[in-house]
């Protein structure tokens, strides 16, 4: 039994019923991605023209594997949230919107899963 009133439960959650969670998660991942994506571009530039063994050796380094995993996680979360806003803004049809939102999440999870499995397989 809860003594919280219905008003208290929805207080601050607004029209989207999820409060500022989406907004904050977008900002936190954005802040994380500023240094992480600079590192990623630097690392990717270093691997331009490298053969497979060099690329594998790069990911064998724990520091590189950890940074890449952090980059991937922050990226897929930031990406899912960002594309979600675009879908919500531009798809007026409710059915289309729900389907697109599900596909968006599925895409982010799939990209994340493939990337993480590949990095772990190489690094371990």
């Amino acid at each position, binding site marked *: 039994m809860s003594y919280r009133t219905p008003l208290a439960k929805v207080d601050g959650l607004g029209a989207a019923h999820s409060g500022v969670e989406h907004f904050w998660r977008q900002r936190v991942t*954005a802040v994380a991605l500023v240094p992480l994506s600079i590192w990623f571009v630097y690392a990717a530039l270093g691997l331009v*023209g490298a053969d*497979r063994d060099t*690329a594998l050796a790069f990911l064998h380094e724990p520091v590189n594997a950890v940074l890449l995993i952090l980059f*991937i996680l922050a990226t897929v979360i930031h990406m899912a949230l960002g*594309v979600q806003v*675009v879908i919500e803004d531009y798809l007026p049809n409710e059915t289309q919107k729900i389907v697109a939102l599900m596909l968006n999440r599925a895409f982010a999870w799939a990209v994340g899963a493939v*990337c993480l*499995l590949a990095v772990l397989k*190489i690094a371990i």
Partner: protein
Amino acid sequence: MAENAASGRAHPRPLSPHLQIYRWPATMATSIIHRMTGMALSAGAAILAWWLAALAAGPDQYRLFCNLAATPLGQIVLFGVLWSISFHILSGFRHLVWDIGYGFAKKTSNGVSVLIVLLSIVLATGIFALGYLKLHGGTP
């Protein structure tokens, strides 16, 4: 619908001006480009997944990816991703500054918008040139 609204009236109702009526401020352009580059980077994330999967899968798959990346179309796509990252990180950083509450003055926001567009092109071209020199000889 238009007939219903207009019927029984001497004059049709005035219409509010739509988007194309307004002159484009630079902030409007960067706002739209920020979204477009964000969407483009989703495709970029899929390419990253492909690269990592190919790298993990084996020499043949990795060679296929590298050969495709080296084609003119592959190079255009990679440059597009690189420019998208460059723009999105610069514009995104400005968004964070806006979130803290700075840079809203009309002159500042428009000037920074133009600066971001130019800087992103310089950044992407510079990094791409470094990669190109690394691949095709020359001493960087």
